[in-house]
């Protein structure tokens, strides 16, 4: 199937680590211009080098703090100046700490809201002017089954991801008439395959989250998934490429759980 992503300008937030890295490389293999919007420029550069080898039309790191409007706007203007436009935005940045609601510090909640929800609001707002002017564009945001079903130890994170889904649906209604599509992909628990695949600022570097990576915990999580395994970063790239492409031209406002059957609704 022709996805026609060759030469498209794609911006991936958090595109240096884990799922974001896999998404950047998947667009690279399709021959797209890939902009890795990263707060961790060093990790971003590692992924950009891989993306160039994989066939990207170009792969550039734009140091970006998605929680800061000025930073986001500067990145979008940079992409538009270099490639002429943003055809595809992937809102991938995400963050959580594995703790019960009542045990979390307010500062931790606030960081979750800033990164998971405000990051998506900022980046989406920043690309829409150009997309409306050009009468087209695709936005794919990473949600979570925690935002659809609720999840232990993921209360505020789940609330943010529910926000990502609802914002997607409302905007799909508002901007559908301009030929702009917004959809959400909900990955399952997705572990990086190696330490090389995430930077020091990634949630996977946080000490409390290391508990997820023990063999016992991995086995427990896998048992909860009908497909009987934990997610790999590449599991969602097919869905993201498809939704970003013209092949999905009539699909908007949808949420796809690509999570091994964990959530079916």
């Amino acid at each position: 199937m022709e996805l026609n992503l060759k030469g498209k300008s794609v911006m991936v937030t958090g595109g240096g680590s884990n799922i974001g890295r896999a998404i950047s490389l998947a667009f690279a293999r399709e021959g797209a211009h890939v902009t890795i919007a990263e707060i961790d420029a060093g990790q971003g550069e590692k992924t950009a080098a891989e993306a160039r080898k994989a066939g990207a039309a170009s792969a550039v790191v734009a140091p970006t703090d998605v929680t800061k409007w000025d930073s986001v706007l500067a990145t979008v203007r940079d992409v538009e100046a270099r490639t002429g436009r943003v055809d595809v935005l992937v809102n991938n940045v995400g963050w959580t700490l594995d703790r019960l609601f009542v045990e979390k510090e307010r500062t931790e909640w606030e960081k979750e809201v800033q990164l998971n929800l405000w990051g998506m609001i900022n980046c989406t707002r920043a690309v829409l002017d150009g997309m409306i002017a050009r009468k087209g564009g695709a936005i794919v945001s990473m949600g979570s089954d925690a935002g659809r079903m609720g999840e232990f130890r993921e209360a505020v994170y789940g609330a943010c991801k529910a926000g990502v889904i609802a914002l997607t649906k409302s905007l799909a209604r508002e901007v559908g008439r301009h030929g702009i599509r917004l959809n959400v992909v909900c990955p399952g628990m997705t572990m990086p395959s190696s330490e090389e695949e995430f930077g020091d600022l990634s949630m996977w570097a946080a000490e409390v989250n290391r508990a997820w990576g023990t063999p016992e915990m991995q086995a427990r999580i896998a048992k909860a998934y009908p497909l009987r395994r934990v997610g790999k970063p590449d599991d969602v790239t097919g869905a993201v490429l498809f939704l970003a492409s013209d092949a999905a031209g009539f699909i908007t406002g949808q949420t796809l759980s690509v999570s091994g059957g964990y959530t079916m609704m």
Partner: protein
Amino acid sequence: MERPFSLDGRTAFVTGASRGIGRAIAIALAHAGAGVACAARALDQVTSAAAEIEAAGGRARALQMDVTRGEQIQAVVKEAESALGPIDILVNNAGVTLDKPSLEVTDEEWDTVLGTNLTSMFRCARAVAPGMIARGRGKIINLGSMYGVLGVPRYAVYCASKAAVGGLTRSLAAEWARHGIQVNCLAPGYMNTDIPRAAMADAKTRERFLSKIPARRIGEPAEAAALAVYMASAASDFMTGQTVYLDGGQTTTW
């Protein structure tokens, strides 16, 4: 993942492949590399679908089958497998609709719609699943509808049948996940096929339809076919039990 959307070396079985969305899906699966068994009641139309695939360099087989005749399904699946190889992909597409006030719907009409839209899907899945389980992989795509989540006057039996497709999809997905089979539901909204096209010939009706669709247009069968290719390919190997609405944003259910 290299070429995640390729279906090279795969074999698909598509019901209702004679026209509309089913035909478009059959052609797209073949274009992506699959050999495709095109099944439907109208032999002349599936023959022309298969001929179109072969003319484009693909592999296909036309098969006459009435999905409401349970005894035909096993035999036709066997015939498809001996012609094209073991079935890796089942597309349960055959369906009928009924536009009628509920008080006038007869028992026979109710049974025909449920038999065609729901029972046949279970029977076809049951016919191909043993082979998929033995080989440890398979894809089943059930055609649902936006009407499976909407309440639509005069469409009670059709809406009920399409809502039930979601339940069938989730249960089969949960039951066969451990065998490497993914089961998903492709749910179109208003598409450029015979019935909506006829309804929208009237300008006022057309405007009323389009005003409810955020994309301000109806979908094309080729777009349903692209979603089917995704659902049939390795690109969707970690997705199961899902219903994806292809409706220009009309329903946006949670």
